[in-house]
Structures are given as C-alpha cells and as structure tokens.
C-alpha cells in the first residue's frame, strides 16, 4: 500500500472547513466552559451550603463519566427531556458543561493556594468581601492557575474529536470520511494527527507568551 499525499492535498478545502469547525467548537466550548467554571467555583466557595451541595454533585458527575457518554445523553437523550438540539449546539453545550467542571476544579485549587494572609491584609484595610474577591482573589488565582488553564485548553482541543460521533462536521469526521471514501486510512489518520498537533503547538506558544508577560507578578 502506498502512502499518497496527493489524496490529502486534493481534499484540503474540506479539511480546512473541518479545521475551522473544530477550532470554533473548541474555543466556543472552552471559553463558555471557562466562564461557567469560574461562576461554579465562586458559587461553590461563597454561595452557601445548598449551592455547594448541588455544584459538588455536578462537578463530580461531569468528571466521573466519559465525555462520550455525556454527549450521547445530551444529543440522543435530550429530545426525551424536551431538549432537541442540532449537533453543533449539542456539541457546544456538551463541551461547555464538561470543561466547566474541570475549570471549576482548577479555579478551586487556585483559590485555595492563595495565602490566607493576603485576604487578612485586605480585611484589615477595610476591603469588603466582594472587593476582595474581585481585586485580590480573582487576579491572584488567575496567575496561579494559568499553566493549568493552558494545559486544559490543549486537552480540550483533542476532546473535540469525540464530537464526530454526534455528527458535528469537525476535523475528525471530515478526515475519516475522506479516508473511508478513498480507502486512504493511513494518509487521513496521519493528517488528522498533524492537524491536532499543530493546534496544540500554537496554543502552547500563545500560553507561554502570556505566562512570560505575567511573570513579574509571580507570587513571592
């Protein structure tokens, strides 16, 4: 069997569309997950007992079941609960709910790593709890968790491949389809791996750039 790059080149426009959808799903789901995860982590910490109970259960459930199963439930089980979603919508929602749980855990760890004295100093000069969260804890926590956030983002790029099973026309679905149509599985799989790798490398570069810029605020 020959390895034929021409097959790949011929289908580049389709691959580009798939890539665009992958990036869209990835960034859309990740950033919504980031926002939801932050809200969850704040509500878990300061929202009282009931909020903590419910959100602990949510985080436990999302982290304790495979993403694949969650997507199936959302896309194929959703209609039974009156939730009839297009593949892209289900994919975005699934990715958001899934990543939010992990982001919430990362933020929780970040909040816990802030020295208690930083809060006490703020209390002593008269800052209110809301001011302390906004001005002291959120910025410090962000600096602490930045490497973990970037790591999570790169993991999520690859999780988007799972969206192909609910027929989101993203990279994995497009390329495996090309592979099947031409019986060129090796070429297609190779291209697939390189494509994800490229996205991850670019993410890493951006991440290191941001970390470098924020280096001078490092905890002392």
């Amino acid at each position: 069997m020959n390895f034929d790059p021409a097959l790949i080149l011929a289908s580049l426009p389709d691959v580009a569309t798939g890539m665009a959808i992958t990036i869209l799903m990835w960034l859309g789901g990740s950033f919504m997950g980031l926002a939801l995860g932050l809200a969850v982590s704040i509500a878990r910490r300061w929202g009282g007992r009931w909020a903590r109970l419910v959100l602990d259960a949510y985080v436990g459930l999302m982290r304790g079941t495979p993403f694949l199963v969650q997507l199936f439930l959302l896309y194929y089980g959703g209609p039974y609960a009156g939730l009839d979603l297009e593949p892209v919508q289900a994919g975005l929602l699934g990715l958001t709910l899934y990543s939010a749980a992990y982001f919430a855990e990362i933020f929780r760890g970040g909040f816990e790593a802030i020295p208690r004295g930083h809060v006490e100093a703020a209390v002593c000069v008269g800052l209110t709890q809301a001011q302390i969260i906004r001005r002291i804890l959120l910025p410090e926590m962000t600096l602490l968790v930045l490497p973990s956030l970037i790591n999570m983002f790169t993991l999520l790029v690859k999780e988007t491949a799972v969206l192909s099973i609910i027929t989101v026309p993203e990279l994995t679905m497009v390329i495996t389809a090309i592979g099947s149509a031409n019986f060129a599985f090796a070429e297609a799989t190779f291209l697939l791996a390189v494509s994800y790798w490229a996205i991850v490398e670019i993410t890493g570069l951006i991440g290191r750039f941001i970390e470098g810029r924020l280096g001078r605020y490092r905890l002392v």
Partner: protein
Amino acid sequence: MSEHAAAITLEGVGKSFGDNRVLTGIDLTIRHGEVTCLLGPSGSGKSTLLRCLAFLEEHTEGIIRIAGEPMGFAPAADGGRKRLPDAAIGRVRRNLGMVFQQFNLWPHMTALGNVAEALRLVRRMDRATAEARALAQLEHVGLAHRAGHYPSELSGGQQQRVAIARALAMEPKIVLFDEPTSSLDPELTGEVLSVMRGLAQEGMTMVVVTHEIGFAAQVGEHIVFLDQGRILLEGRAAEVFQAPRHPRLAQFLQTYVDRGASLVLQE
C-alpha cells in the same frame, strides 16, 4: 486612668481552638501613644493575642475594646456576650493597621498599587489623589523610588516597609505588628526596625509582637511577657529589663544574652 487614655482594653480575654487553650484570663490596658511589646517564648499565645485584637481570630471569652468600642463581641444583658454584626466589626477595625510577619503584599500590584488600593476602594479617592497619597506614604518609609516595582522585585525589608506604608495610609490610630522582622535576614531587620522607631517617635500607638529584645528594650515602653497563654508579668520597659524579677523572664532574656544580643536601654 481615664477611659480616654486607653487605646485598647482587654477584660478576661481567652481563646481556645477546640480543646486547645491558647489564651487565658488576659486583662490588659494599652494606652494611646505608647509602644507596647508582647514578648514570650514560641507558643506563648502572643501572636494569637495580637490577631484577636484585629478580630482575625475570634476570642472565645472576654471583651476587647478598641478606642472604647467593643471588638467582635459586646457584653450582653444576661452577662454573656453577643456577636456584633460584620459592619460593626469593620468599623472598629478602621482604628487599626496591621503589619504581618509574611508582609502579605498583593503580588499582582506594584508597591504604589498596594498602598493606593484601599484609599481608592475604601476611602473612595480618585486614582490621582489616592496615588499621590500613597506615594507620600512610600516616601515616609523611604521607598518612593520603588513605587513602580512589584513585590517580587523588592527585598524582604522593602516589602515589609511597603506593608507598613499600606497600613499607615489608612490613618489608623493604632498599628499592630505581628513579628514584623521574623522572616527577614538579619541585615534587613534594621531598616524595618528603624521605620518602626521613627513611627514610635511620632507618637503612634503600637502593639508589637517581637523576638527583637533589643528593639523592645530600646523602643518599648510597656512590656507584656506572656507564657503559656497567660500574662506572666507586665510593666515599664526599664523595670522589666533591668530587674527581671520573675525567674521565667530572666531565663527567657538569658537565651538572648547567650546569643549575643545587647540589652541597651533607653535613657
């Protein structure tokens, strides 16, 4: 002694962490304009006592008054105590500035930002006014030229001086120091102690938990010696240091003399 002269009074103050009793029956009066040094071996409860004054720890017994007002708990009609609302605690706390062993500067803000933060958020000053005030405060501790630096770019001594400026910017009546030089290299303690000495000369009311016996002997006016959560003795610096009547204090001071500390007393 008139009520006016008392900056802080403690009546029967005790503190337990669960079954672990840390402070017992503390009665103490701290007067305005005086430097009070809390001394004692590790685990004697002196830091806990200081933190109770700012209500960073809740005392489990007794009443603390700051500038005449009860802190955290007020006497109740039934003879017990009632917890005061957070707003009241915050209001009483405004009399106090706090300086910590670990400095506790906010790492994402410059020295100027650390000092200006509460001026903007609590005093509601606009940025320019707050920063001008903050810069003057940094000048006071000799660090105006470091205003734009982040804590990670400052030495420990400089960080602690910024922390002192941050506390002073809010114009407290009383400044509490919790082992302000204990996490500094010996060559950096001097610059912090000299800022504190200057503050004492300006007449600031200070309560200082310290292991710097030399500082306590030179700058301290009122010495309180704690051991196992109780006040073992208190008195004027001269009498406490020159004639340590209590064997436990004599033994405590001897460990410093053994390490070469000089007990040079004020005139």
